Each structure stands twice: as structure tokens, then as C-alpha cells.
């Protein structure tokens, strides 16, 4: 959905690029964690229901810590809760991929796999950056995300190389979600600004390794990777698909209806 708040691609960094940078990392995890939590009670089998809920909780935990760090960096007194529940759609900086609806189980798994393969590479790079808190959070999250990748990779093989029905659904999901993968590797003035302060992530090398991982799993899963196609973009600048607003409405309603409530 285009909103009146749409920002043009950033040529100049904002006043606090590190805040924006951490927000992007945190929002990916918050949004994907919430999406996965929507499976709770609806998983295809009890064990997988528990697995998806575990992964959702991992992401919510990561988001909580990252948002707390973002709030601290911003220095305006915003907590992880303020940032999660009292920002509007155009203020979210997550990639478009993670806000896409769960769809069928194949869509959820393909979305998860494409993200996990990227996430472990980014976190691996981030654990070596010159910002002790960010590096520590990345190292902690990496342990969890390595397991997530193992889980989603296995399911890719199982669905892709499973029945005709599961193969068709996995292939369709891959075709539909592929256009959201380009955004993961975009860089702009914010990346350049934090790189100057020692938070440098080599996106070109990450992209090459990501393509290797994805190609390897797709081949073993007998799935065909879509060719070059126009990629969707905008999430990192607050320009989201129509799905995020609906998700946030549900995610934020309790906190907004009862401000300051605790239990």
C-alpha cells in the first residue's frame, strides 16, 4: 500500500543512522515472529505446531532485545514496547518478505527458508562488528537462526521432493515470494553511514553465499529457482505491502486499547 508518508530512496543518511539500521534488523524479527505466531494452534501436526511456535518465540525475543537497543541508541526514551506497539505501518523498517501472509504451509516454509538462509549470513557478519552490544545480540541470535535454517531446509526438501501436491505448492510459493528477495541485499545511505562507524556488512559476498545455499537446497528439493525478475522494494523505507497494516492492527490492538496495562 502506498501511503502519503512514502520516502524516496535515501541518498543522505538520517540524523541517527544507527537507530534506523538496528530498527531494520529488529523489525524483520518482530514481523516474522508475529507471522509465525499466527500458526500457533493451527500447525499441520502437534510437533510442527510446537516447532513453529518455538521459532516465533525466538524471533520475538530477538526483536525485543534489538528494539531495546534501538531505543537506547535513539535516546528519546522509547522502549521495546513503545517501538513495537506504538509505531504505525510507515514507521516499520522490515523487509517486505517477512510481512507476506502465511498462506499455506509451503508458503510459510519457503518464506522462512529464504529469510533464514539470509539471516544466518547477516548475523554471522554482524557478530564481528565494532559495536559490542549489537555484536553480542547477533551472536546470540545466530545460534537460534542456525537451527531455524536447519528446520526450514529440511522442510524444503520434504515438500519439494515429496508428493506432486507438495512439490506444486512449494514451487508456487517459491515463484510468488522470489520477488521479495532482492530487497534483502539492498544498501543505501544508512548502510554506508554505519559502515563508516565500523558496522560493515559485505552485502555482495552475503548475496553470493545466499544464492549458493538457496540453489543447493532448491536442487535437492527438485525445485526450480525463478529467473531474474523485477524485485519489489520499499520496506526498508517504510513503504509496505497492504498486508502489514492488517497484521499490525491485530498485533497492536491490545497495547493501544489499554495503554500501560500490565498482567
Amino acid at each position, binding site marked *: 500500500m502506498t501511503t502519503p508518508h512514502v520516502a524516496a530512496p535515501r541518498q543522505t543518511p538520517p540524523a541517527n543512522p544507527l537507530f534506523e539500521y538496528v530498527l531494520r534488523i529488529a523489525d524483520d524479527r518482530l514481523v516474522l515472529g508475529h507471522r509465525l505466531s499466527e500458526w500457533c494452534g493451527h500447525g499441520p*501436526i*502437534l*510437533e*510442527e505446531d*510446537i*516447532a513453529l511456535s*518455538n521459532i516465533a518465540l525466538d524471533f520475538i525475543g530477538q526483536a525485543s532485545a534489538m528494539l531495546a537497543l534501538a531505543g537506547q541508541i535513539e535516546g528519546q526514551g522509547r522502549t521495546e514496547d513503545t517501538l513495537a506497539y506504538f509505531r504505525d505501518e510507515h514507521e516499520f523498517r522490515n523487509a517486505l518478505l517477512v510481512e507476506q501472509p502465511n498462506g499455506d504451509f509451503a508458503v510459510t516454509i519457503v518464506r522462512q527458508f529464504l529469510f533464514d538462509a539470509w539471516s544466518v549470513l547477516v548475523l554471522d557478519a554482524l557478530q564481528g562488528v565494532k559495536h559490542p552490544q549489537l555484536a553480542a545480540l547477533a551472536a546470540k541470535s545466530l545460534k537460534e537462526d542456525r*537451527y531455524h535454517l*536447519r*528446520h526450514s531446509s*529440511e522442510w524444503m526438501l*520434504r515438500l519439494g521432493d515429496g508428493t506432486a501436491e507438495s512439490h506444486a505448492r512449494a514451487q508456487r510459493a517459491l515463484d510468488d515470494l522470489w520477488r521479495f528477495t532482492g530487497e534483502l541485499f539492498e544498501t543505501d545511505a544508512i548502510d554506508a553511514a554505519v559502515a563508516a562507524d565500523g558496522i560493515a556488512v559485505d552485502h555482495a559476498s552475503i548475496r553470493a553465499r545466499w544464492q549458493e545455499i538457496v540453489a543447493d537446497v532448491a536442487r535437492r528439493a527438485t525445485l526450480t529457482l525463478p529467473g531474474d525478475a523485477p524485485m519489489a522494494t520499499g520496506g526498508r523505507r517504510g513503504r509496505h505491502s497492504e498486508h502489514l497494516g492488517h497484521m499490525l492492527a491485530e498485533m497492536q490492538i491490545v497495547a493501544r486499547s489499554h495503554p500501560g496495562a500490565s498482567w
Partner: protein
Amino acid sequence: MANESTPPVTADSQWPLWEVFTQSKQGAPHEHAGSVHAADAEQALQNARDVYARRGEATSLWIVPTSAIVASTPGDAGPFFDPGNDKAYRHPQFYKVPRGVRGL
């Protein structure tokens, strides 16, 4: 799918059943924790991790196809498990446990 490592499909689910054994710390015995459904060994391991080991309960997991377990039957109770309490010499109660020994 039917081979040595994949147990037959059971009646309660479309996926086979596996027994899970967790080890709480290195050197401790693997103890039965419960069971999970899974299509193959790797998935069984992952499901066991998610169901029985995600709060740090385990340092190691063993997964065994339920069909590979051979169990005694209730009818065996007499001949198999009669404690023989009248034969005191069968029970190792004459040994003194040295001080400081744990895990016995």
C-alpha cells in the same frame, strides 16, 4: 519410505512414532522423555529437540523408532521381575559405599 530406518505408519497418525531419550548432562544416562511423530530420523530429532529439549533440559538426544523397542509383557511380571527377597545374597547390601561417591 519403508526401510530399516523408518518404522511403519501407526494407527494414531499419518507419521510414524519415535521414542525420545534425553541426557541431562554429560556422563549421565539417556532417559526416556516421551515420544514424537516424524516422517524420518532427522525430523524426529528436530521434533524431539523442540518438544523435549528447548529449555536446556538436554545435552544429547537419542531417537529410536518405537517399532524397534522390544518390551516385556504384563504376563512376564512374575517370572521376570520377582525380586527374590528371600535370597538376601542376591542383593548387594553388604558393600559399604565409599564417602564422596555420587551418582549411584
